């Protein structure tokens, strides 16, 4: 196996066609999140991070179901999605460590990962912010008549903010090519879902907006991809949006300072038994895509690769002080090079 970090985001995305690479990517996400946790304790990371360990099947299942020029908005729990969509581990870890080689040049941090070449808009640190933006990307896509769609990825916590309801309504009334992906990991920040949300399934809310609402086993990457495929086809056909709810689980607390002591006893163990990496690896073993010991080999190789990335990142330069003033507005220094989504942007 090659070190996938050496590839471009686009090449990494295309590699997801391969099942073994899908598994490797899930392992990579876990490995990066674990390493980020350690980098924190080593004092290399400022502010906060929001880890996605346990949610890898959603990340890879969504990424493999859409094209690199479809548009994705995502929340601050976005390391996994960024990696799945193609951002390199150097881009992710570099950003979280505030280095120039980070995907936002070290100016964004953990909550703001971005990579236009694979459709990822800056991940937003405001709950619900990505849903309306995805609607707008869908308006632009439809204006181009290019078959592109927008995907909004958000958590169960977002389902209680106005932006969720306004966006589902807005997308439905305009039949926009959007897929709303709710990662229901059972916790909105520090609070379990039954204390904040009167329904167990976010998907039932789709009925208010006359769109399909689907409940998916978010720990099974193939089930995630299958549900996505239906919603994506519907969107591309011009039949409008869907709400796809991925039942998943966050192994860690909300952010680095949260030990998650509020979880009921046994809950974490229950979910660990349904680990998305193990589920997929077992399937690939059964299908002879993976040979015995294959997962362990991938895990060892990935861990080594991530260690190399961390060494590269920690040895790499911080942004210059002048970057404070770069790319603030059109008059700022920095040399903006606007990403031309969908090629020629001369007309709508």
């Amino acid at each position, binding site marked *: 196996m090659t070190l996938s970090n050496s590839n471009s985001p686009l090449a990494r995305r295309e590699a997801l066609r391969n099942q073994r690479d899908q598994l490797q990517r899930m392992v990579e996400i876990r490995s990066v999140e674990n390493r980020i946790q350690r980098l924190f304790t080593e004092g290399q990371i400022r502010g906060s991070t929001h880890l996605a360990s346990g949610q890898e099947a959603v990340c890879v299942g969504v990424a493999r179901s859409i094209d690199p020029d479809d*548009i994705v*908005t995502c929340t601050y729990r976005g390391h996994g999605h960024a990696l799945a969509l193609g951002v390199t581990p150097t881009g992710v870890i570099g950003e979280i460590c505030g280095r120039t080689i980070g995907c*936002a*040049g070290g*100016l*964004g941090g953990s909550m*703001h990962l*971005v990579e*236009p070449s694979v459709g990822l*808009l*800056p991940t*937003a640190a*405001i709950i619900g*912010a990505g*849903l*309306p*933006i*995805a*609607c*707008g*990307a*869908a*308006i*632009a*896509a*439809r*204006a*181009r008549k290019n078959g592109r769609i*927008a995907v909004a990825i958000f958590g169960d916590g977002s389902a209680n903010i*106005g*932006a969720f309801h*306004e*966006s589902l*309504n*807005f997308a439905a*009334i*305009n039949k926009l090519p959007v897929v709303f992906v709710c990662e229901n990991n059972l916790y909105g920040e520090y609070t379990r879902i039954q204390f904040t949300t009167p329904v167990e399934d976010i998907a039932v809310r789709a009925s208010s907006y006359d769109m399909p609402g689907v409940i998916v086993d978010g720990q099974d990457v193939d089930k995630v991809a299958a549900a996505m495929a239906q919603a994506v086809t519907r969107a591309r056909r011009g039949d409008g949006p869907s709400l796809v709810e991925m039942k998943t689980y966050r192994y860690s607390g909300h952010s680095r300072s949260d030990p998650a002591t509020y979880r009921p006893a046994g809950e974490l163990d229950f979910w660990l038994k349904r680990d998305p990496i193990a589920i997929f690896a077992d399937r690939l073993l059964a299908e002879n895509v993976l040979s015995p010991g294959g997962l362990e080999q991938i895990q060892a190789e990935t861990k080594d690769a991530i260690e190399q990335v961390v060494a590269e990142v920690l040895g790499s330069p911080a942004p210059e002080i002048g970057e404070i003033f*770069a*790319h*603030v*507005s*059109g008059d*700022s220094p*920095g*040399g*903006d*090079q*606007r*990403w*031309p*989504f*969908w090629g020629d*942007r001369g*007309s*709508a």
Partner: protein
Amino acid sequence: MARIWIRQAAQRALDDAMADDPSVIVMGEDVAVAGGPFKVTEGLLAKYGAERVIDTPISEMAFMGAAVGAAVCGLKPVVEIMFIEFLGVALDQLTTQAATMRYLSRGRLTAPLVVRASAGAGQGFGCQHSQMLDHWLRGTPGLKLAATSNARTTYGLLRSAIEDPDPVVVLEPRILYSEREEYEFDLNYRIPLGKAEIARSGKDATLVTCGAMRRVALEAAANSNASIEVIDLLTIWPWDREAILNSVERTGRLVTLEEATAGAGWGADVVSTVATEAFGELKAPPHRITLPDAPVPYNGALEARYLPSPAYVTEQVAALVSNNKAPAPWWRSAA
């Protein structure tokens, strides 16, 4: 010269921009079929179709955010916020999402959208439909903010805003929509953002203002024994420091006339800049004419007292020029 309603200047700016650039779209409540609550978008649906002139639900957060996404992906959305207060429920999308798009993507993504909003007092709309609220937006890195003041500045600022690479908010004083003015349209007329203009020359005091207060300032200056230079900021953020400093250098006195409460107004920034950078040029303390720190009253007599009138402005400037001391605002001298 044709006699037009000032709202027609906004309508023409949208119409001409849409004709020039097929990526320009218009979104907002009642803008398409109804032609806009203030008739600013009249005729656009028939001319450009429902793909480009989009009626939205009463969901400011959704359509403001949709403007951000559409702008990032190559369209140039012009969003109408019926009353600027309605922006409150959508502020995140503008100040937190749109304004940081370029920065967070290190120049790879931009959000060139325009927010047009009716704003300001004087018509008895009460305290939730009568504010300027530029202080919600002013000073936000990555965001520009302008205020129109007549037919010409409405056309010129809107055309520039739509062509600008950054998100721009254009505040349109609602009280001006139904005023008539002589104005000849010029398709090529633009007012560069970030530049103020001298609306009237004078040598005794610089009176800086914007929006609907421009008319008040001009009338006050016309009726004043002092020679007052009236400057229309036009762009409230980022504002034209050079124009103000140059003028104060000539006149030696600074007065700001703001349709904003004292605690919120842009004049505090102008005054602090002038006091710091032109201290030696000043013959009198810089002086701010503002609204009192109170909500906009509904009752007609109270609203008329609440807003600075030309006579009040003349009196305030005269007091400053004659004895080089800042006069008290009406609510303090009356108390």
